């Protein structure tokens, strides 16, 4: 196939400011957006900053906004665009810019530290741990998360309100919390954290996170809503409430 020229607009700049710059470059068969970025880097802009590792949708490093849509650049095929269409690539908006397409995602690593660790129950009498596939299927769905942070980026609780960040863990960490809470062996209690510090109540289930998840994890339906139901049972169930009054808790 003959190479086609495409018109790319890439955001270039740093924390102080920047602008979109235009690049024209040849595209070969089967190329993804990340290939085009690499070609521009090798031929026209050696210092173009971008994160990537696996180039196969497994590591979640190359997150960006492609024509305004949060995507992994390595999994966005060039043939999904109309011929002649200008393709605009900008960094994730919810995080501070470091340089070009690279953002400061340290918020996510701080949130990860706040979640109490997995704490296993005692082993079976024979010293083994037995679990059944049907009991771990739902948790394995959560373990598919590649930490691309696109769900965090698109979540309007922090995307449009930076000041919410201290009080909100975000969809990625609701998935993590759900994976721990539903782990058949875990014995830690994180309900108070989920209600308070993680700020689950801020989420009003618009499902934006689910839509952008490249691993197709049902973040809202399978993680967030069940956690919200557990919170209701834990803190607002009238019978339990009465019990707490008498137990003095």
């Amino acid at each position, binding site marked *: 196939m003959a190479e086609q020229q495409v018109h790319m607009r890439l955001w270039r700049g*740093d924390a102080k400011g920047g602008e979109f710059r235009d690049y024209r470059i040849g595209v*070969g*068969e*089967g*190329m*993804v957006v990340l*290939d085009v970025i690499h070609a521009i*880097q*090798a*031929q026209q802009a*050696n*210092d*173009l*900053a*971008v*994160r*990537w*590792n*696996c*180039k*196969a*949708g*497994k*590591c*979640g*490093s190359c997150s960006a906004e492609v024509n305004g849509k949060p995507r992994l650049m390595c*999994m966005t*095929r060039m043939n999904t665009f109309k011929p002649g269409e200008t393709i605009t690539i900008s960094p994730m908006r919810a995080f501070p810019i*470091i*340089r*070009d397409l*690279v953002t*400061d*995602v340290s918020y996510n*690593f701080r949130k*990860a*530290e706040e979640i109490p*660790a*997995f704490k*296993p129950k005692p082993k079976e009498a024979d010293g*083994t*741990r*037995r*679990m*059944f*596939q049907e009991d*771990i299927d739902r*948790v*394995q769905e959560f*373990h*598919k*998360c*590649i*930490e691309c942070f696109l769900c965090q980026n698109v979540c309007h609780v922090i995307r449009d309100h930076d000041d919410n960040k201290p009080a909100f863990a975000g969809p990625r960490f609701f998935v993590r919390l759900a994976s*721990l809470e539903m*782990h058949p*062996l*875990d014995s830690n209690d994180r309900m108070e954290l989920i209600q308070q510090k993680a700020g689950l109540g801020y989420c009003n289930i618009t499902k934006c996170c689910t839509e952008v998840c490249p691993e197709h994890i049902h973040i809202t339906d399978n993680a967030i809503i069940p956690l919200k139901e557990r919170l209701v049972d834990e803190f607002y169930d009238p019978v339990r409430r009465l019990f707490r009054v008498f137990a003095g808790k």
Partner: protein
Amino acid sequence: MAEEKYETHEYDVIVIGAGGAGLRAAVEASAQGVKTALVCKSLLGKAHTVMAEGGIAAAMGNVYPEDNWKVHFRDTMRGGKLLSNWRMAQIHAQESPDRVLELEEWGALFDRPKDGLILQRDFGGHRYARLAHVGDRTGLEMIRTLQQHAVHKGIDVYMECNLQRLLTDAGKISGAFGYWRESGKFILFKCKAVVLATGGGGKAWKVTSNSWEYTGDGVTMAADVGADLMDMEFMQFHPTGMVWPPSVRGILVTEGVRGDGGTLKNTKGERFMFNYIPEFFKVETAETEKEADAWYEDKKNRRTPDLLPRDEVARAINSEVKAGRGTEHGGVFLDIASRRSADYIQRRLPSMYHQFKELADVDITKEAMEVGPTCHYAMGGVRVDADTTAATVPGLFAAGEVAAGLHGANRLGGNSLSDLLVFGRRAGLYAAEYCKALKGALAVNTDQVNAFAREMLAPFESKGSENPYTIHADLQECMQDLVGIIRVESELKKALEIIQQLKQRTRNVKIEGNRQYNPGWHLALDLHSLLGFSEAATLAAIERKESRGGHTRDDYPNTDAKFAKVNVVVRKKNGEFALSQEPLPEMPDELKALLEEKK
């Protein structure tokens, strides 16, 4: 020029690299009570381990009670063409079940069979179904489990921090020096011990499953301070990488496809692997399609030749394509669609399904995949002590792909993840012990540090006009064409010449822009280690005048008994690589007996 100020940190142990080996080493060193830091080039959780698909080899005997460490030891030794360090192979086979169960204690969730224990899958070269796995994303489960465990242990992590040089004091490790990618500022670690867990150097080849990080840093840093390298001639070309479209060429297709029933076919529809069964594996390999298919149901039958060790399968595919029985894109077919139900394929191989659908418009439940060899893994690396992972420089330890020994001439699939856990833990443990026993203070030579800093900044002030990406691409062409799957002396010597020319050209690299998150500069600095790795690999390939495992010589097509007894060792003397052949350690009789058993 005034010397630039740089930040300095002091630790007992610095672990470089945060894949499976680095994370496990840091967890262990920290648990031993020494002050530990983990330093990595990418964000935490993005290291190469995340891409591992198939599973962790561990003789737990959950599926086949007949399995035990002795069988695993034998499989590993035979897979490595008897060149593996016997003691490492023994420790690895004995300890890997505990390391898998430990991950479960830390929250990992492996796939389960009906009895609720950990399910194990078939893989090439393993006699029994042995790989603990999570669908085809085992590496992700492993790295995330270790990462979360390390975070909760309070280990200091320096992310996107690239260490480039090791420092020594009177021959002992005393520190490491590098830069922050984000700011481009320098950073110095003063320490008593360094654990290298930096992976391999597969990014020196063009068709590769390796990411930008795989530039041979650990191998070059170790060689630069005088440590021995070993087995550098053995590179694993994984038989099944994607071949089409061109932009995805090299991306890995898990061996689990064949483990779960997929077979290789040429364009005539023949299952050609039956024509490539070597004498060495004849006794244990099925001769007919019927026998091979029966093996999937009952392991009393002999195994399918589709699951011969990777070196055999990669060479076979190479030969089929050369003989004109390959696809128009230079691959062969890997067919699971006609052999297993769509439901089974999607459940067992979800990320393969996803990868082909998204990147190649191929539905693997309906059509065959097109596959061909891709540069995947370095069997060779830093020479280490089998028990302690200590390199030949005091204070230096190495674990995982950067270390040599366990895999000999060829690694079996699944033995890498277990290697990371077993020897990662040992590296952390013995590095901590070394620190505790170390007497006297260590110094860092600031003149040397300043000289490194000047060297690293030179590309900004260069009067030349070389583009680092062009030099890298030229190196990849050279290694792909001249130091590939099939090698010959004249081409290897030509490769050496080109590597020397490329070294000269790196002096003229010119970097545009500033130091802040500048990938052009990062690559310019990584060229040093890419070229060091490539040179050592090429020199060792010239030295081994025979064909064995991941090293095939067209001019010496057979194995040679003389070379069966030696490792090729490479070390730097006065700044130049020197070679020697050193005898393999003597194996105890009881282990020899295990190898001699038939089948």
